[in-house]
Every structure is written in C-alpha cells, then in structure tokens.
C-alpha cells in the first residue's frame, strides 16, 4: 500500500478549476517533484496535502489515514516555504526548537534534537544568529532543519530554492537530496525549474492546466515525453515540419531529404504533414548514428560550455549543441553542414 495517496483530488476557486481529478500514489521514502509552469495547480496540490486548502473533492490519505478532518497543525508534516518563513523574532536555535516546544517536548530533549538538526545542516556555529543575519541559503537550511525537527511523517517543499542565487541553488538542492536520502523521509517538492526536478527526484509529475500530463522517472520524462507540452516544457526541443514519404517504409521527407524513422508513422498517408522533434544535444557534426540532415548554418552562438548552432533544413530551423573546446571551429553562417544523429532520437510529436 502506498504511503501518500491522492484520490480524485479536485480544487476549484470560484468558477476556476485549478486541480482536475488528480490521482497519485507515493511510496514511503520517495522523492516526488511536481513540475509545471505557474498556475498549473502544482502548488495547490501541495497546499491541500498540507491542509492549507480544503479539497473541493477527493481524498488525501497518509499511511492509510484520511486527512480531510485534520487541521494543518494535526497532520505532522514538515514544510519549507519559498522564502522568508523563519520567525524573525527568534534566533536559529529557537526557530528550530519551535515545533518541539509547541509539542511540549522536555527541554533537554529539545536541546539534543536541535543540536542534531543543526549538525545535519552544518550550521551548529550559527545557533545564536537571527534570520536577518543569515544568507538566503543559510535561511533555507535552517527552515529545513525546523521542518525536520519534530520528525514529520512527510516533508513538503514549496519551491524552496527559487529565491536563491544560481550557484547556491545547485549546492543546496544536492544537500536537500542527500539529507532526504539519509533520513528516508517521503518528500514532495514543487518547482517550475526543470533542471531542478530532473536532478533531484525519484519521480516527476509534469503538471499542465490542473492535471498530470506525465508521471515518471527523470529520464523517462526527458527522453520519452508523453505529450507535446511535456516535450516543450522539459528541455529545449527542435520542432521539424516534414511530410510522410512512404508509410510502409516509415520514411519522411524534410525539405528534399529522405529520413527513415524507427517508429511507425501510424495511419498517416503519403504527403501527410508530420511534426518531428529532436533534442539539440542528440545531433552532432561528427559522424555517428544512422541519420543525416544537410542544412545551411544560420547562426552559431557561443554559450560557454556549449556552442549552439542553428541550421535551416527544408523550412524548419534546427538547433544543435556541441561542447565547447578551445580548438573548436565555430560553424560560419552560410556554410552547408551535415548533422548526424540516430534515427531513434527523432520523435513523432503527438498533440
């Protein structure tokens, strides 16, 4: 039996249905991310699990126990907010101790537990500081320690990294993941950052307009997007217009070039239009794979570790990425080049 079960969950604000009949089971110890653009309903689901919003329909149960009659304060969950949720009038120690004090834990136990938590986030030396004396990253680590101190059965993270600088964001997400693994706590993480979700999660739920477009492991989501929305929201994707050449041979024509696909074109007839998707990193200039596209270079931009080149192929623009190296020759605009890739990387886009 799953640990956290969301069944037929719905939420409407007035006439707007924000969450539409959502179902999901989360196992004990799993790290699940809800990924989607703002307004897709991901935060609303988190807030319903926390008890801040009352579902318009459906049930939430944790460890088999229905939560609908419980207030937030009775659900025994830990929550980390986007930012600025530390109590400004308390120092780090008192912030972390707050949940334990409210629960009436004896003082010596509180002290031991707070010390343990501060050790976990490696901020023992800052116990006397007030929130305004901490950096954003430190504040969020204290918020994590505060949420974990009362040993919650579930950890909820509401975009805890989005207010931080890029470098701190990366190191803190690794730290969160490591602490989560260490404690084995079931965690639900909400984010709009695809790289964050891909790097941290056991499973990802890609939300779109109130329902889950796809639920799967990071590599499933990235390599086998179920819908056009998932494909375009997760990573960068080239959309290439083509027409079916021979359905039986699974060939398509891009401009005047013939390409054989690995998947079936379905019940499309010759000359039917078809949209193909190709990830920029799947193609390269060096010979590999079984497919080739020839095109004229439109532009090549140096992005740091990566050089992104755009070429025109039969009316579509195709971008591809190469890792930079000091001896790399940048393709010049106007030049004709051959792009190599594996035909298996060419996906047929379904809408």
């Amino acid at each position, binding site marked *: 039996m799953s640990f956290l079960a969301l069944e037929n969950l719905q939420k409407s604000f007035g006439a707007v249905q924000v969450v539409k009949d959502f179902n999901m089971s989360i196992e004990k110890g799993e790290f699940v991310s809800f990924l989607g653009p703002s307004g897709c309903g991901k935060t609303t689901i988190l807030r319903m699990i926390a008890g*801040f919003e009352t579902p318009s329909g459906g049930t939430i149960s944790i460890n088999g126990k229905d939560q609908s009659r419980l207030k937030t*304060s009775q659900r025994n969950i830990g929550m980390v907010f986007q930012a*600025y*949720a530390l*109590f400004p009038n308390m120092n780090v120690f008192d912030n972390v101790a*707050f949940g334990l004090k*409210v629960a009436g834990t004896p003082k010596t136990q509180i002290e031991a537990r707070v010390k343990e938590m501060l050790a976990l986030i490696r901020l023992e030396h800052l116990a006397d500081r*007030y929130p*305004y004396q901490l950096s954003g990253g430190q504040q969020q680590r204290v918020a994590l320690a*505060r949420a974990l101190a009362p040993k919650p059965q579930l950890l909820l993270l509401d975009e805890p990294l989005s207010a931080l600088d890029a470098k701190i964001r990366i190191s803190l997400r690794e730290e969160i993941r490591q602490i989560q693994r260490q404690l084995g706590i079931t965690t639900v993480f909400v984010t709009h950052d695809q790289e964050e979700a891909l790097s941290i999660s056991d499973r990802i739920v890609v939300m779109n307009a109130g329902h889950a477009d796809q639920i799967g492991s990071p590599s499933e989501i990235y390599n086998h997007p179920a819908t056009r929305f998932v494909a375009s929201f997760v990573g960068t994707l080239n959309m290439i217009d083509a027409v079916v050449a021979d359905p039986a041979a699974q060939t398509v024509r891009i401009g005047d070039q013939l390409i054989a696909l690995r998947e079936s074109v379905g019940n499309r007839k010759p000359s039917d239009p078809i949209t193909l998707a190709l990830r920029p990193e799947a193609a390269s200039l060096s010979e590999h794979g079984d497919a080739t596209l020839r095109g004229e270079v439109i532009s090549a931009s140096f992005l740091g570790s990566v050089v992104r080149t755009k070429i025109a192929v039969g009316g579509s623009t195709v971008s591809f990425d190469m890792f930079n190296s000091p001896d790399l020759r940048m393709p010049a605009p106007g030049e004709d080049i051959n792009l190599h890739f594996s035909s298996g990387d060419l996906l047929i886009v379904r809408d």
Partner: protein
Amino acid sequence: MSLLTRIIGWAVLIFGLLYFFVPLGGLFEFSLRARRGVYSLDAYVRVLADPQFQATFSYSVFMALVTIVIGILIVVPTAFWVRLKMPWARPYVEFMTLLPLVIPAIVIVFGYIRLYNTSSWLPLTGSLTGTNALLAFGYTMLALPYMYRAVDTGLRTIDVATLTEAAQSLGAGWITILRRVILPNVVPAVLSGAFLTFAIVIGEFTLAALLDRPAFGPYLQRIGANKAYEPFALSVIAFGITWGCLALIQLVSRFSKMAPPRI
C-alpha cells in the same frame, strides 16, 4: 546640477523648519516674558502649580491610556485577520479607517448626544461614567486611522500568511501563533500607534468641549482666553509632550529597524 539639487534640498528643509518652528519660537520667547524686563520661568511655575492644570492634564492622560487600550483591542486582531483571511475586505476596512479623518468631530458628537441622551434607551450622557465612556469612544474613533495604519504597516513588514502557515505546519494553534509569532513582531508598530494616539488625545479640543468634560484641550483654550503669558507656557508644555511622543515613535521605529529586515 548636483549643487542645484543640494540648494533646493536645503531650501525645502529650511522652509519646513520655518513653517513649524518660527511660530513655536515666538511662542516660547513670549512665554518667558512673564516677569517684566527679564526672561523667567514664572509663567511655567504658575501653570504647573495650578490645580486645574494638574486635574485636567491627569484626566487627559487617563483618557489617552483608556483610548489606547480600546484601540489596541479593536485594531490588532482586526488588522491581523484582515491581512490573513480577508484580503478582499481590506479596501472596506481602509475606507472605514478613513472616515474619522473626514467626518467632522462635531458631527460625531452631535450623533452621540442625540443617541445617548437622558431620554434615550442608553442614557450615557446622564452619568459621568457614561459621558467619559462616550468621550473615550470618540477618541478611539479619532485615533483609529493612525492606530490601524501603524499596525497594518507593522504587519506588512512580516509575511503574515507564510509565518502563520509555517507555525501551523509545526503544530501551533491560533493562540500560540498570535502570542509567539505575530505579536512579538508588531510591538514597535503598536507602540508607535499608541504614542500617536496619546499625542492626539492630549491636544484634542472639540470632543471634550462639546461633551463638557474637564480635559486638557478645553483648559488650554480657557486659559488662553483669560491670561496673558500662561497660555503660551501651556502651549510650549503641550508641544513638549507631543514632541516627546514623536521622539519616542522615532526611537521605537529606529529600534525596530535594527531588528530583522523582512521581505
């Protein structure tokens, strides 16, 4: 242009100072002239020794304290609840707190007198306590805009919703949240609202005069009509008190600035 900026800046400041302080300076200078030919504090001594001064002043202080307590009891929970749960009601509440600024005090008093006169269902004006209560409620009304704004500003500096939710997720109930999380963070705002209320009540004239209560405002006016130097001494004293209150507000707000910056 930098020079021009500076000149205009100083001109504005100096103009402001003159606007307020030249009258006060004149006032102060004259109040020292009670003894012919030399400056002296005679007028102050006489004023401070006047038993009426002591009586009216302590009456007004008492009324100010009562007003502050009523104001805090009304304003703090209202402002918290409006911020947290009824953001849609904010324009209405703000509109309501504007009313006392624009409804003349006289209108309010006439309304009170009419409503609570000796022949009404609640004859407040028939007894001293009743009239005092009426006055206190009138003062509360006058002070409401300032008190509400001060507290609301205080609440704005913390993220009320998030802090409340954080405390809830840690198992805290409403009382714990108010006592341990919200109140400690708005104390400076509440204090500054209280000082402002104090200053307003001490100097108020219309309400007290029309309800015929022995407050400091009417006393000031009575003295003004009958004595030569004392009214000026009294004005200086009144000014000193309000100045003290303002200074306290500044102190409190400076103190609160040293506390955590938020959002």
